[in-house]
């Protein structure tokens, strides 16, 4: 049976100790400020227009023909040098140089080469897309049309159609910011626990009427409460509660519980700050992967989906950025509850064993 009086006494003591650890106080406050500043510094709109430069035969005609095409902006260049300079400066995504004998070659049915200029850091996906577009543009310049019958419908959208209403990058960044902040909180609690074990103050506590369950309950309530309060404050500061606040609060509470379970584990295994740091990083890097994958929807591989933070990340993104309600987020919340139960049980088991065998 847990004694609330004792649990409260331990929590009060722990808060006093934590607030005197200047490193964690500063890093938490500075982290919070930095994450909020980063969020608001990122653009709030999505510009997915593809800017292409065109030079050579038929370029002007092409531009006038493509005028008004959504998502595509064509600019004419007089020389190859100017085209290259625009690519290098980043003014355009890619440059297309149609050779002067392009039309003649097409008419004669001979092969010709169109040069495409792309910056060195262009991804393979963009290069492939630009190459495909060059073929289409080449048909237009040659006065032909693609040998493909357009589908009756433009496209079949699975789920909510967000064409023209894309989610800004910063909105998808929220789970990652949350995990960074939770990491600080986890390290703070883990350090507190490790210090109690190292100095054996926990032994002094456990020869009073305090039970191990009181000790564990105090750490759990304090860790979860602080982590939840901090991450909720962060989410409020980055305007995440504008849609489905209740779903988001539940997701954050589960996230706080998850990292508290990890803190119990890290605190049991680490002996000093450096060890806590190493164990924390070891535990937290896998948690960041789903949050990183959330920045690029559709990229989460199967193995990412089984990581403990995947459900939490999806619930946060979907509730805060897409306005998803209970129906859409419940599977992710249940997934997180399952992981919380596993990690928390493991943390309690390891810490209990540690303090009872000192």
């Amino acid at each position, binding site marked *: 049976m847990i004694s609330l*009086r*004792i649990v409260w*006494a*331990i929590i*009060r*003591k722990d808060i*006093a*100790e934590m607030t*005197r*650890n200047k490193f964690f106080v500063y890093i938490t406050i500075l982290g919070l400020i930095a994450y909020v500043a980063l969020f608001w510094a990122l653009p709030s709109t999505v510009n997915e227009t593809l800017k292409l430069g065109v030079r050579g035969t038929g370029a002007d005609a092409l531009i006038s023909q493509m005028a008004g095409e959504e998502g595509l902006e064509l600019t004419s260049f007089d020389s190859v040098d100017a085209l290259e300079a625009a690519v290098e400066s980043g003014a355009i995504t890619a440059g297309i140089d149609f050779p002067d004998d392009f039309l003649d070659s097409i008419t004669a049915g001979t092969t010709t080469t169109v040069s495409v200029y792309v910056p060195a850091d262009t991804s393979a996906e963009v290069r492939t897309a630009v190459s495909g577009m060059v073929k289409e543009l080449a048909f237009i310049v040659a006065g032909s049309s693609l040998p493909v019958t357009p589908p009756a419908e433009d496209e079949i959208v699975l789920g909510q159609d967000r064409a023209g209403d894309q989610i800004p990058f910063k909105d998808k960044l929220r789970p990652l910011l949350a995990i960074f902040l939770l990491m600080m909180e986890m390290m703070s609690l883990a350090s507190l626990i490790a210090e109690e074990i190292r*100095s*054996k*103050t926990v*032994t*002094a*506590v*456990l*020869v*009073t*009427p*305090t*039970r191990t369950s009181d000790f564990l309950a105090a750490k759990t309530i304090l860790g979860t409460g602080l982590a939840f309060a901090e991450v909720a404050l962060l989410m409020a500061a980055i305007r995440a509660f504008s849609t489905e606040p209740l779903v988001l609060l539940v997701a954050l509470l589960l996230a706080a519980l998850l990292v508290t379970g990890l803190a119990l584990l890290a605190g049991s295994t680490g002996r000093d700050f450096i060890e806590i740091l190493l164990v924390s990083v070891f535990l937290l890097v896998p948690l960041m992967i789903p949050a990183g994958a959330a920045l690029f929807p559709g990229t989460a591989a199967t193995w990412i989906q089984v990581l403990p933070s995947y459900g939490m990340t999806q619930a946060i993104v979907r509730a805060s950025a897409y306005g998803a309600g209970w129906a859409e987020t419940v599977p992710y919340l249940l997934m997180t509850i399952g992981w919380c139960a596993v990690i928390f049980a493991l943390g309690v088991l390891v810490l209990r064993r540690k303090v009872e065998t*000192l």
Partner: protein
Amino acid sequence: MGEAAIQVQGIRYSYGGQRAVDDVDFHIERSEILGFLGPNGAGKSTTIKMLTGQLRPQAGSISILGMSMPQQAEQIQGRIGVAFEEKNLYTNMSARENLVFFGRLFGIGDLDADELLARVDLADRGRDRVAEFSKGMRQRLMIARALVNTPDVLFLDEPTDGLDPVSSQAIREVIRQEAARGAAVLLTTHDMNEADKLSDRVAFINEGHVLVIDTPENLKIAHGKRSVRVRARHDGSVVETIIPLDEPGADERVKQAVGDRELLTIHTQEATLEDIFIQFAGRGLGA
């Protein structure tokens, strides 16, 4: 005599295959101070861990204040005080905060921490962080912490370790006061002199066994070798004679040594507890 404050019967504990405590029996009355003496690894700490509820005995029984340990650990732990050898204090908190926190664990909301600090001569350092304390000051705070709940049983592990002679004397006085108040005190120490001065009875423990329990005086009489060292002037020179008192004819030999000589000095020599411990254990406490 009423029920003993601590009654231990046949307790055993092994770490893996290594027997640390083997069939240990003893009791401590209220107001009694029992000195638990033995070298490192003798089983003192394991015994105290079982008595304070940190370890569960693998055999035997422990009764403290009429309650069974570990079955009634929570009730017992509310009435005991423990000062560990390791100075396990919260160093980022003040001395006062340490005591108030432990008071709260015992359900004492209005603890007079200043009075406790005054008892161990730390009244003027109550608001200082323990991290700034010397080893001796930490030790005194450990004693104060053990007294937070006005315990009926006190477990003190090396209570004067690291203290200067004046502080040691002050702590001994606090321990005597606690015993006079009615507390049973189990004290472990390496310091035979301290055990001699402080304990009503002493128990020698070695390799997990209690070898003997008795008052220091009885142990010295029963097992110690007494002697008299006589220095006298005879025919212009100083003669020193040591006469064992436990051998036949000792009285006569003392009379002869003094005789008609000019007596300069005469000293009685008693065995120390350390001497007696060596007799029982075959080694000293530092071995």
